[in-house]
């Protein structure tokens, strides 16, 4: 006599399951796969990628450099211009150390960044400041820029002098240095000097217009090769009113310092 179990077994294939079993397994597997895809959790298969999460947070931390850049440009503009004696002492120091300043330029043909000397004629800047003491006397840096614009717009022959005065004074006020521990020689005094790029556009009276990087009227930067690669720079822009009722756009491109240059605990 055949039992019910024996009867069922007789309907199965030679490996103990039939087509209905195979399709039910495939169907079950597909359902599980769809659930995983819907949940969109790649880490189901690879485990939790905490490194990726950490790197995302690090990006957010980097973006906070913008906050720092904003306060720095605001601080630049509020910095009081020194008295003549102090200002010229700073310019003299710059004259003595300008051979130690290095910046970087991009070769237009190869796209490679190359080291370059900083073109700084401190004598020309001092001559201009001597003949135009009103541009810095009793003013803050914002007022200094505003006063330069009055000369820049009125006297075309003075434009190069204005550019050099801006370059020298901005460098003298805001240049930074990092002790690099190298021995003193004719090309190095033990410091790496740098200055985040500062540019001024007198022409763009509408702050909503897109920036014209190559057309900034005044600009200065000292970015040695050591300054460039580690972190992405951020830009901060402030607009100041000018005496002729136009506006000047001042842009600071802030290059965060390399972590090895930062103060230690």
């Amino acid at each position: 006599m055949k039992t019910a179990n024996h009867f069922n077994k007789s309907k199965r294939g030679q490996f103990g399951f039939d087509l209905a079993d195979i399709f039910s397994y495939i169907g079950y597997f597909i359902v599980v796969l769809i659930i995983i895809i819907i949940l969109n959790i790649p880490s189901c298969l690879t485990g939790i990628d905490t490194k990726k999460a950490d790197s995302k947070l690090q990006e957010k931390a980097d973006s906070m450099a913008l906050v720092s850049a904003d306060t720095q440009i605001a601080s630049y503009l509020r910095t009081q211009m020194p008295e003549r004696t102090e200002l010229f002492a700073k310019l003299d120091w710059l004259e003595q150390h300008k051979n130690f300043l290095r910046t970087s330029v991009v070769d237009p043909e190869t796209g490679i960044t190359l080291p370059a000397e900083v073109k700084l004629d401190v004598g020309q800047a001092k001559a201009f400041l001597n003949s135009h003491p009103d541009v810095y006397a009793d003013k803050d840096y914002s007022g200094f820029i505003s006063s330069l614009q009055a000369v820049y717009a009125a006297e075309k022959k003075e434009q190069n002098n204005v550019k050099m005065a801006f370059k020298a004074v901005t460098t003298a006020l805001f240049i930074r240095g990092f002790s690099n521990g190298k021995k003193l020689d004719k090309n190095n005094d033990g410091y790496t000097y740098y200055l985040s790029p500062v540019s001024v556009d007198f022409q763009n009276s509408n702050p909503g217009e897109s920036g014209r990087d190559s057309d900034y009227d005044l600009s200065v930067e000292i970015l040695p090769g050591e300054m460039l690669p580690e972190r992405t720079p951020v830009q901060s822009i402030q607009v100041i009113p000018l005496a002729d009722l136009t506006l000047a756009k001042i842009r600071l491109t802030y290059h965060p310092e390399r972590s090895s240059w930062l103060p230690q605990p």
Partner: protein
Amino acid sequence: MVSKLGSLLRNKKGDSTPDEMIGWIHRSVFTVIVALTTYFIIRAFIVTSIQVAPIEANVLMSYPHIHKDGFSKFDSTIGRLYPGVMDTSRFTTGQLKLLKGEKPSIVGRFARNQTIIDYHLKKEEPVYAYTDFDRYKLWQPLAQSKAKGEGGKTPYAELRYVTLADGRGAIIETVMIASN
């Protein structure tokens, strides 16, 4: 042939067949797949550790600059704060104590230094202010050792240019030490 083999493998009582056993292998494999999949799905939702200290450190670095209890110039008459303009009389540990919590997980040291040309023309000693001096000194060696893992401390630092209330420039060197 297979049925012959199956009959050979049948036990003495005849109540178990090889084809049934082979069928259970598939079921077992799929049971394991389902169990593992469920495990990984649940595990994916349990985030064990994410390092938020860089964000916290960056926020707290900016905090004394933009808070009325920090060291930026504050005009109490009109309630206006001047971020980026430092009131040197407020650059003290006593002032920054107002910003720390009961049990801070991050402590900071702020050093007011000269700009590089001023430093070379006429050197002055830096001025320090701490959010929690005792805890900072306690954590400093741990941060210097750069030990990883639970109980370790990690330093975060930045340099920032500020204007002093008298119009001169200064560089603020900030170091925040956070628990791992």
